């Protein structure tokens, strides 16, 4: 007899391929199937030219989760196209070659980035402005005939612009 228990909560993350960080997350509780595609009506709707209207489905068979491809562009795990495959506690898959990257997770597992090196966050370079140099450059421009002329007419220009609409 096939076990008919309900699945534990699972999450699906749309992942930024450069940083490994989630862009969007969907949570599903006690749901035996999760449909993914471009069309409204899917549980996960992703608007992307690589994604078919009905592209893939996560199915819980009573024991474990399987990923099923439905789309013509294919569903890939580690660059290999799949048709139906059992998936682990954490699985990365892509909708079409070069398409959106998704990460499936069972509940209770914290989202981890793809690459621990990517976790490192570098502080930005300090922005230092040479105020004397800035004032000197600004003054040279502001004292020009053209800038003086423009300052004089800028309010008229903007007024004309708003009147002409």
């Amino acid at each position, binding site marked *: 007899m096939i076990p008919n228990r309900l699945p534990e909560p699972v999450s699906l993350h749309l992942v930024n391929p450069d940083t490994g960080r989630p862009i969007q997350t969907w949570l599903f509780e006690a749901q035996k199937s999760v449909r993914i595609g471009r069309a409204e009506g899917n549980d996960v709707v992703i*608007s992307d030219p690589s994604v078919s209207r009905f592209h893939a489905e996560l199915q819980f068979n009573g024991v474990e989760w399987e990923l099923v491809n439905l789309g013509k562009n294919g569903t890939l795990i580690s660059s290999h196209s799949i048709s139906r495959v059992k998936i682990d506690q954490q699985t990365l898959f892509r909708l079409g070659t070069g398409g959106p990257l998704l990460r499936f997770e069972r509940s209770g597992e914290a989202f981890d980035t793809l690459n621990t090196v990517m976790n490192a966050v570098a502080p930005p370079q300090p922005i230092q402005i040479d105020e004397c140099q800035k004032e000197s450059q600004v003054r040279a421009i502001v004292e020009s005939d053209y800038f003086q002329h423009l300052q004089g007419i800028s309010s008229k220009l903007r007024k004309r612009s708003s009147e002409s609409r």
Partner: protein
Amino acid sequence: MGRIISIHSFRGGTGKSNLTASLATTVACAGHRVAIVDTDIQSPGIHVLFGIKDDPDRRCLNDFLWGRCKIEDAACDVTDALPASNHGSPSALFLIPSSIKAGDIARILQEGYEVSILSDGFLQLVKALALDYLFIDTHPGVNEETLLSIAISDKLFVVLRPDHQDFQGTAVTVELARRLQVAEMALLVNKIPATMDVPGLREQVERVYQTPVAGMFQLTMELVQVASSGVFCLRFPSHPFTAEVQSVARKIMR
């Protein structure tokens, strides 16, 4: 509405043209009539993003500046570049390109032109094409055209990279824009390395320039790979870069 939006940067290579194309396209997709003018007469480039090739019969901004045609005659209708779902809607997108012919560029640099013609042209364009938004893609740096664009704009975006080569010049540009009493100004920080602390960078930029940051764009390999062969946000509608473009576009349309 006819709002004029200028996108400017002190240095070249900040990604200004890509951002202009993406922002204008996104606003058009929201159901608006939008035009982009490429005023970077010295090194025009935004036409490449829309696949516009050299055509001897096509008018361009140079022809308008030389008095050969009305500015609206130089407008290319690129509405077909928008997704199919926009076709038949009020959305419209036009591009007024600058000439890519070396001779034309050399001539206009040598002879110059009356810059005030540009401001008349912008207003005429808004009227003739019934525009909701006119985006001006400016030449990098401070010159008469860029100052004019700043002076006439309803909103100015200054694009910079988190790079020392951009910091000082951006400070000059922001100060000049204040002196010209630009109505609204915001910064767009582009090409941010993936490992950089984005919130920390935003806080620092806003503090140093005393100007709000409207968008923070991370350097993305997909954009490098597209290599300006198309408008990025149309190719990658779900990408984080596109999400940030949409966020900035919402601020424009507010």
